[in-house]
């Protein structure tokens, strides 16, 4: 545990029709930690993090972010403190990437535009996009778009960043440039919750890994321990499949 509790799920349930996504799920996320959520497709990983910034509403239980209960009334305040990076980037196509990044802090946090732009420029420089700030999203590659989306999240100066499969929509050769940026954020000690299938990245860059299955958190462990003989068959199978597939991909690449 690095710091105070940032997010706490307490007996949370959530379902879509008959499909139960969270079944009395409880977990805590701590300040300064990089926490990876993994699990099979459809396990509810994305739903879990989307509940934190109220993009999804829980059915029952308690969900708190810092001192606030996550509900409609507090949604705006929570979104000022929690940023999100999406799988499909979701940059606004009619705005340049600089305008994309400036919109939130100016309109939501009411910060002066020149101050926000200055901060944005520093962030763009860090992720290697300084030359592209006046480009529109369609003029960028997938990796560049996702880096711009990360800058948009960072420019809100958030207490927590949620990553929803940030590399899943990228071509293999672009994954590295995005994970590199996230690794930089890990070094800074940012609080992050990341949904990903990139288990090598998870092992190297995270503090904790949780495995979600059948609406519950099956296991939460420090990253290094997570990979050492997990006691659940489901997790062993999942790791075999994920790491096996990666290995095959790499072999094909070498060939």
């Amino acid at each position: 545990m690095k710091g105070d509790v940032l997010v706490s799920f307490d007996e949370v349930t959530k379902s879509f029709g008959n499909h139960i996504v969270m079944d009395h799920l409880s977990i805590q996320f701590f300040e300064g930690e990089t926490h990876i959520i993994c699990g099979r497709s459809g396990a509810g990983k994305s739903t879990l993090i989307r509940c934190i910034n109220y993009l999804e509403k829980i059915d029952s239980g308690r969900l708190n972010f810092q001192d606030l209960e996550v509900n409609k009334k507090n949604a705006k305040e929570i979104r000022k403190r929690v940023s999100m990076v999406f799988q499909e980037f979701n940059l606004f196509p009619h705005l340049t990437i600089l305008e994309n990044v400036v919109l939130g802090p100016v309109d939501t946090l009411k910060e002066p535009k020149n101050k926000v732009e200055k901060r944005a420029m520093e962030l763009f420089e860090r992720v290697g996009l300084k030359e592209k700030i006046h480009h529109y999203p369609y003029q960028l590659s997938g990796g560049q778009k996702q880096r711009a989306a990360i800058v948009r999240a960072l420019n809100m100066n958030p207490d927590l960043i949620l990553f929803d499969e940030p590399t899943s929509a990228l071509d293999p050769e672009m994954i590295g440039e995005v994970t590199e940026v996230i690794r930089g954020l890990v070094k800074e000690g940012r609080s992050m919750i990341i949904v990903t299938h990139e288990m090598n990245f998870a092992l190297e860059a995270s503090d904790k890994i949780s495995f979600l299955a059948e609406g519950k958190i099956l296991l939460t462990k420090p990253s290094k321990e997570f990979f050492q003989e997990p006691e659940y068959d489901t997790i062993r199978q999942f790791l075999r499949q994920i790491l096996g597939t990666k290995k095959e991909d790499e072999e094909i690449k070498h060939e």
Partner: protein
Amino acid sequence: MEITFLDILNTLKKGALETIKILPLCMLFSLITGTILGAIQSKKIPVVKYLINAYIIVMRGIPPLLLMMVFFFALNINVPFFAAIIVLSIYHSGYITEIVRGGIEAIPKGQFEAAESLGLSNFKIMTKVIIPQIWYQVIPALAGQYIILIKDTALISVIGVREILWSGRQLMQLTFKPFQIFFLIGTFFYLICFTLQQISIWAEKSLKQKIVDSGGRT
């Protein structure tokens, strides 16, 4: 006194100017009202949804000429110029409401979510993120609606607006040259509609590149 071709052109010019004065105002008001109502309609607010639906159904179900007569004769709005602007704007904004609603609903859900996750208010999500993106999708339908609006301006002569068709009718009674006069009036309307079509094609192309060429992932 003989009426020359130049006299005909001058008289039609006065009528055309009246049409040209009314047209942008109708376009603007119907667009503003249609966009506001379309944005509200996309939110599917219980009672409001039915009220706007009722308005759309009424506008779609009655001829604009009837509406014009209701406003001018029944409601006694005796200034033809204003009555024409009000009626044409109200009538066409009913259609534009549906065009805008369709455009908003075609925007990917992720765009709304990204804007929400930045903490933007509903108003700002619409005005800064969603509405600016719908134009590419709605331009062809909007241009089509505006072309109908342009042609509907010919109806306002009924309530006494001295627009181009009204001027043409006066000239015809003096010159007995209906073919030449109506040919000139037809050319006037055709040129305006053609110009609008060209502008819409250009606008659609330039917006398409920005919004669609990103392969759906933005």
